[in-house]
């Protein structure tokens, strides 16, 4: 029985309300900005990855990944 660590994206004071759409989007963007700033293989960006994966539905992430590959992603990467 593996011990699963019970940790998830913390409550972000920038997004105190019920609507967390922007929170998920911001974490996704932060992750990719971190990647382009720090490089693909540094482990420092993993934290942001965990956050956006916890918050964002899989479909949204897939769609955004596709958009990034196509160059049509609407956010400030």
């Amino acid at each position, binding site marked *: *029985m*593996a*011990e*699963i660590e*019970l*940790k*998830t*994206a*913390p*409550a972000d004071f920038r997004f*105190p309300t*019920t*609507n*967390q*759409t922007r*929170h*998920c989007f911001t974490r996704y963007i932060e992750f990719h900005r971190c990647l382009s700033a720090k490089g693909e293989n540094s482990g420092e960006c993993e934290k942001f990855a*965990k956050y956006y*994966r*916890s*918050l*964002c*539905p*899989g*479909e949204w*992430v*897939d769609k955004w*990944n596709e958009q990034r590959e196509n160059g049509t992603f609407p956010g400030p990467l």
Partner: protein
Amino acid sequence: MGLLSYVGSSFMRKCRKGNIGVSRFLHTSNFERKLILSGGTESYQGHFSKRSYSSLLAAGSDCRTTVARMRMPNIGSGGFSSSTYLSLAKRNSRSIHFDSKNSLPTSVNPEQIVQNSEIHNITTDVVKMMGDIPRWISQSVSTIAPCDAPEPWQIGFQDAATPMMQGIIDLHHDIFFFLTNIAVFVSYIMARALWHFSHKRNPIPQRIVHGTTIEIIWTIFPSIILMFVAIPSFALLYSMDEVVVDPSITIKAIGHQWYWSYEYSDYNSSDEQSLAFDSYMIPESDLELGQLRLLEVDNRVVVPAKTHLRFIITAADVLHSWAVPSLGVKCDAVPGRLNQISTFIQREGVYYGQCSEICGTNHAFMPIVVEAVSTNDYSSWVSNQMQ
């Protein structure tokens, strides 16, 4: 409660044979047929060895939720206990001791089962109580088992399992007191006025047009009442806004037409979902003995009790709403929007809810079942699911 259930049961006796009302609620398939054909001797245990949710939990913890679900035939049975089918089920279920040793005759060794003392004590207490009290009393006295699903003829709330729901129930009691006072007072005044408005009883009407004192009183007094109503209401409203504690788990509930899907993405190592599943309603024809019609699902949302949870609710197509009354949660699922709900489930148990925003033809058939288990059970469930 006793009187209501008696009234309910006499009414229900008439509906028993038909396809309406309670007999639909009691619908089962194979077991009932086996029971009748075998002349009432079909073993409850023998039939109930296949549990549709057994894949959800590790083998060692099957017993506890089996015990919890076997309680179902006894819950709220005051209203229709005259139905012979249910009386049979009650007799059968009462004759079984709800402990770990003989509720799972085939699949699990007794040594494997770790007893959860809380649930074990609750269920054995219920069984002992049901066994001791004569049946006619037990039919009218409500059971100890918590009400986390709708009951037939239910008027009040389901039992609270979170501080939020308990707050809502307390606020309701506060407001209802003043509401009853005002309703009785206004009805009395109106009835009195109607009674006295009669040429024979009151030929000379009063011609009072002013009365400063009373006008002041009936302005100030209602504002005092409003203050008594508003204070607990605002207290609850603002206390639920305070998110002081970071949640331990995030669970996404995504509404589709016409089922819910759940993602537990805290354990993802890549963008690929490690733990995600769909949750469809179990159709009436596939129900087993003791299961609730239109409420059961194939895959339940398993969560740890006594942990701060965050639910992210959204939809994939049209508006839905994720509602579980026992947890005091109702949150619209809007496509393109993520709504966050913080909750803290205070006791282990199984909580039922239904989609609460019209979403098409099967809007009534996409229920929600949250199963709160101990943290260890949750960890083992997650590990099993991820393999």
